[in-house]
């Protein structure tokens, strides 16, 4: 890591204006280049991505390694993490349903092979299906879920990649008691924690306290903010609570604004005090909604990292 204990990666949510409407950076190489230039200009060291981009990557760049080369040509180090965004379904793909485990294990064998051309630190998962498909959330279901991820983590380690868990506010394992049960039942050798500051804050789980409790299992972070805590049934709306929860139109914001609920300075002190060395990822998905702008949100979050958080720990 050189002199710095912390390096900053950008989770690659992005939209910009194209001549025929909004585009993402996967539109073509020119749009990807503009995206990467802006990430580098803001001072990020690397990017994270989603592994479902595999088809666009192979189509446009030939291979994952070629795409990473393209990233590097823009002055960024590499791709640090990939997010495995599964389309959960209790009939075919649900961690608490043992009958679906074989399919999930095979999915990870295929995925890891596809991404084997580059070095990844983590593959990030939402470890439980949607809350409404898992409820009632019982200790048995949590144990079944933990057993699955133990097995998945063993697979990913064969490719040198850590399995790490990211608990969305609308997934089946998001309350502090259920989180504790999950981490008690999973094997620290294979199952790690990826702390998304906003997601935990939304569920009224203090991300600083939660991180501190499991610091030895944490392999990364999404530093992201929110302005609303979930209330009532916000976490269990079909088909997707992030879209359907009636209390909140936009859940996520960039860090570094006064309106946010996450105490990032306390978080950074905890990161320092626990001796964490490695990557922190910045994320602000849907930044362009409700009048936002990805480039501006990215600049603001990176400004905050550089001028506030790095003074606490760098």
């Amino acid at each position, binding site marked *: 890591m050189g002199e710095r204990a912390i390096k900053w990666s950008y989770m690659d949510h992005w939209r*910009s*204006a194209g001549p025929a409407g909004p585009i993402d950076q996967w539109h073509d190489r020119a749009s990807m280049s*503009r995206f990467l*230039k*802006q990430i*580098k*200009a*803001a*001072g990020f060291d690397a990017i994270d991505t989603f592994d479902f981009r595999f088809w666009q990557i192979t189509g446009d760049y030939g291979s994952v390694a070629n795409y990473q080369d393209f990233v590097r040509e*823009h*002055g960024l180090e590499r791709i640090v993490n990939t997010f495995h965004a599964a389309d959960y379904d209790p009939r075919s793909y649900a961690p608490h349903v043992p009958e679906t485990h074989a399919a999930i294990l095979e999915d990870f064998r295929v995925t890891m092979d596809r991404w084997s051309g580059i070095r990844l630190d983590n593959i990030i998962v939402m470890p439980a299906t949607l809350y409404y498909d898992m409820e009632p959330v019982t200790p048995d279901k949590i144990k079944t879920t933990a057993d699955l991820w133990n097995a998945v983590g063993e697979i990913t380690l064969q490719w040198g990649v850590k399995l790490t868990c990211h608990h969305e506010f609308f997934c089946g394992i998001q309350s502090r008691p259920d989180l504790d049960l999950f981490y008690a039942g999973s094997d620290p050798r294979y199952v790690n924690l990826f702390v998304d500051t906003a997601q935990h804050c939304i569920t009224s789980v203090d991300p600083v306290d939660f991180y501190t409790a499991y610091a030895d299992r944490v392999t990364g972070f999404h530093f992201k903010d929110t302005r609303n805590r979930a209330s009532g049934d916000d976490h269990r709306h079909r088909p997707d609570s992030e879209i359907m929860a009636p209390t909140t139109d936009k859940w996520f914001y960039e860090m570094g604004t006064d309106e946010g609920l996450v105490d990032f300075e306390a978080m950074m002190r905890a990161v320092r005090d626990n001796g964490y060395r490695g990557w922190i990822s910045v994320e602000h998905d849907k930044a362009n909604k409700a009048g936002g*702008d990805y*480039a*501006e949100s*990215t*600049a*603001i979050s*990176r*400004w905050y990292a*550089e*001028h506030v958080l790095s003074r606490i720990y760098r």
Partner: protein
Amino acid sequence: MTTFKLGYAIDQWKPQFDDFVRRRDHERALKTIAIAGFSGVQLTAGTGRWQPLGNPQQLEANFGSVDGFGEFVRSCALEAVAAYVVDPGQGFHEDLSHGADARSPANRDAVVATCGWFAQAVARTGGDILVCRPAPSGAAGKADDAAIKALAECWNTVGRATAELGVTTTLRFDFLSCLRLADGWDRLLAALDPALVGLALDTGELAAAGRDPLAEIERSPLPLRHVILSNARATDELDEFTRPGAEFTVRQSGGQRGIPRWFGELEEPGLVDPAAVLAALGRLGYGGWVVVNTAPSPHPATSALLSGYHLHQILLPALAGSAS
């Protein structure tokens, strides 16, 4: 190793009077400029309550004082206001002035007063450059010898006055200027006192008028005191700068050819070669501000970040490589 300082022009954030009026907007713009790798911000004069950064009175009204605005700028991790850009032909609600044409000797005191007002603000916010529009747009017609003499005397007087505040008065040629007629710009430069007035080189404005900014650097009789690095996408080939209301009909709406954006990104193919400009500045040992201006931009934050990338990852490393 380059000796100049990098700044960014705020103009692109304010396409209309009711845009960019809230403190939060200003803070986000300044922080974006800072994290993109710039250390100064260039302001442009404006008038009225909906121009919070437009003049010293509005700065005081919004930030408590001009010094308070300076603190606000520094709190966003910028060092200074690089310059204020002022067109004395613009009227100000704040003093009920209606704009003064510097070609008339009778307007000299008014121009000096307006420029002094802004120079004080520059001096109190960490800067030392005032960028002035020397003459009105082309509809005013060519500047005859009497007009050139009046302009020179006016700007020499302004330069002498702002120097007492520690601020250098610079003149910026723009592509709508009446000084495009009858070699007015060159005649004015020759008539000015280089000890009192400096050149503010705006690369894009020169290129949009069909002039070569590199030649301007080499042959200007005035000392180069300020640089605005902009990239023109088109030249005013139809001489539309002489049309009435060219500020609106040509600069903003693109004239008869419907030019959507006269000035683009530094990285785009355009009429300006930013690498050659920086190399020329390096040869001069130029130590002032280089302010990037991409206004108007549909996406200001993107423009600032792309400019920062192009400067810090492409242009400046190449310049350092060629110097070593």
